[in-house]
């Protein structure tokens, strides 16, 4: 059974690049366009093993999304990896405080992404 990864980003280009890279590495992916959509997809899919999420998104940003997800018993320990740009080092810390499992700095290389995913999912 392929492991399902949720990719949350308001930029279609990023969604596509990330999900394609993951699919090529043998994972299944679900995509969401912002935090709100991410919550919906998370509940609907039932089998998400990992979430990769951007921070800057309209409607519901990454930090809020993190906080919302962590409040749900089922997803308390769901691995959530944050995508941030270098300039947001401090936000990265805020994300960690809100419950992020790890982070990847944009732009990132495909191998690095897969390596981190493998490390988190085992």
């Amino acid at each position, binding site marked *: 059974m392929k492991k399902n990864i949720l990719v949350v980003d*308001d930029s279609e280009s990023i969604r596509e690049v990330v999900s394609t890279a993951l699919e090529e590495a043998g994972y299944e992916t679900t995509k969401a366009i912002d935090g709100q959509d991410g919550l919906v997809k998370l509940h609907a899919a039932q089998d998400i093993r990992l979430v990769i999420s951007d921070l800057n998104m309209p409607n519901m940003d990454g930090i809020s999304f993190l906080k919302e997800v962590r409040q749900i018993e089922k997803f308390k320990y769901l691995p959530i990896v944050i995508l941030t740009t270098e300039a947001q080092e401090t936000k990265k810390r805020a994300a960690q405080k809100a419950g992020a499992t790890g982070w990847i700095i944009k732009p990132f290389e495909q191998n690095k992404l897969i390596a981190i995913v493998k490390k988190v999912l085992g």
Partner: protein
Amino acid sequence: MDGMRQIYIEEANELLDSLETALLALEENANDKSNIEQVFRAMHTLKGNSSMFGLTHISDFLHNLESIYDKVRIGELALSKELLDCTLAALDHLKIIVYSPDLEDPINKERHQQLSNEIQQLLDFETNNVPVKEDLLATKITASKTYHIYFEPYPNFFDDGSNPLLLLAEIAGMGKTVVVPHFKTIDFIEEFVPTECISFWDIYLETTHDEQSIFDVFVFVHDSAFINITEIPYQGLLNNPSFLEKVHATASTAAKMDIQELLSLSESLGINDKTLVEKSPKPNDNTVNGRIEKNKEKVASSVRISSDKLDELMNLVSELITTQASLSLFSENNKIAGLETISENIEKLSRRLRDVSFGMTLVPINNMFARFQRMIRDTAAAIGKEINFSTMGGETALDKAIIEKLVDPFMHLIRNSLDHGIETKEERIRLGKPEVGDISIKAYYSGVFVYIQIADDGKGIDVEAVRNKAIEKGLLGEGQNLSDKEIFNFIFHPGFSTAKVVTDVSGRGVGMDVAKRNIVDLGGDISIDSTTNIGTTITIKLPLTLSIIDGLLVNVDNIKYVVPLSAIVKCYEVENKLMKNNFNRLLILDGEQIPFVNLREEFDYELSCNLLSQIIVVYDGKHKVGISVDAIVDEYQAVIKPLGKYYKNQDFVSGATILGDGTVALVLDTNKVIDLHIKNTMKYAN
């Protein structure tokens, strides 16, 4: 990864469009914060995407622009004409290099360098531009406050990789900052543990952000540092040399600023907050004030869908409607308990589904207008004319595919108005017209068509000149008498252009004939109306191709027709004998004299043996005409299918629809039936 590139380009173009719209809006109103936010967001996302794809030229180019607009966004920088012009130029450059991001073309490379320098200068100028005089502060629109921040990381601060300098940088980004560093005293060098943090800071910040935002910067390091924020209720301190001298006095020592001392110092040197002119009235909630709150309004988020999927959805909905019609029929013919209610519910649901799904490919014509605005602005400037461009009915929606095909013909028509229509400023003044020329676009629905009118208040088209040219070209006989409108139609003949000079701006190969052909290909039509020295109006008519329309199903000699409800005024029942031998071809209905068209006669059917006929009075915006049919069957939701090329000449039928029983009904174009009547009246008059 070619598909990825395509997605990147599509998204980039969307972002650049949204950027352009916001920039043009800011030209009108520089204070609209939502537009500034839109500019920033577009730049930020595009920069992120570009760096993701390794397109460093683009992402680097955007970096400074993004910084500038970040400053504008938090109120630190004002929008100037220079900045906007430069940004628009940068936008144009980006539109080009999205397709060739490596700047292979030397022209692109040069422009890139030039614009980058300009942007750098703007950024440097603005950051170094410090208001020196204290009274300048009185003119600040948003209230900024002064804070003292004491930041002392614990010795173990570095343990998790935290970097205090980054935090300081973030504070500095929030406003005018003065940072005074300190070091704890080390008595013995052997005691010094290099991995421990012995630095701490007094930070003075003048910002429009509120205390909470400052606090948020340190949100994670609360466990590993001591932070204290104090508001200093005095203004102008950070520009005051005495104040600066005092606070810097303890720099690089272990002595931190004492708060009490700070407050009394501030009191003596600063301007009390309360003496300032309080916040100027805030016209709209968009102006930045303190807490940068997430825009709580529901921002309409959008999803991109492939047009194939949309087409498929549309087809399915159409088939659903057709099948639902069969269900209705079945339910009528077979009285089964409960079936009628279910059938009615399905009818209501499919109607709603139809409206929603067909609404999806309809795009408001506004999008097109934005492009024209840009073109008019640039072209008018280039040819020294001043134009007021206004639009009406921008929310009128058309099929997306049609809008795309309209851009070129419309551009050409507008260029014509700009170039040949609107006179020069001097000429206009001489004629007593306002110096600024008027170009307007108006869009509205009528029946199953959309009308778009492009009008200018220029010098108009000389009917005589056109007439003579037409005679010259052998298109018109000398003695032939045609209406002005018909004469103007000759303008659409290939090679007809009466423009004496093919200017650089318009008339380059793309003629009126091509514009007309493009519009006719879409199933539309174009006509010109003009008065010398008053102006010219061009009317374009286009079909709403995605048509499921509400109509009235009627019978004419066993053939069923659908009359669009939107065209119908009222229905009457009339005795047939009133229509026979009716020389005036007029009926008196509700006290009004209304001309009528006898469809049976028109369509060469045998005359009816019935006693009664139904008259459906329709309106085309100008005339009311009654159309006689044998019987009205029912209201009907018609999925219109095109008849195709074979029936191009039978234009009074705009399409066909499949009824619940599988037979085909024809959809009447009532405007054309009215035209038919007018033609007949003239025929009878002669």
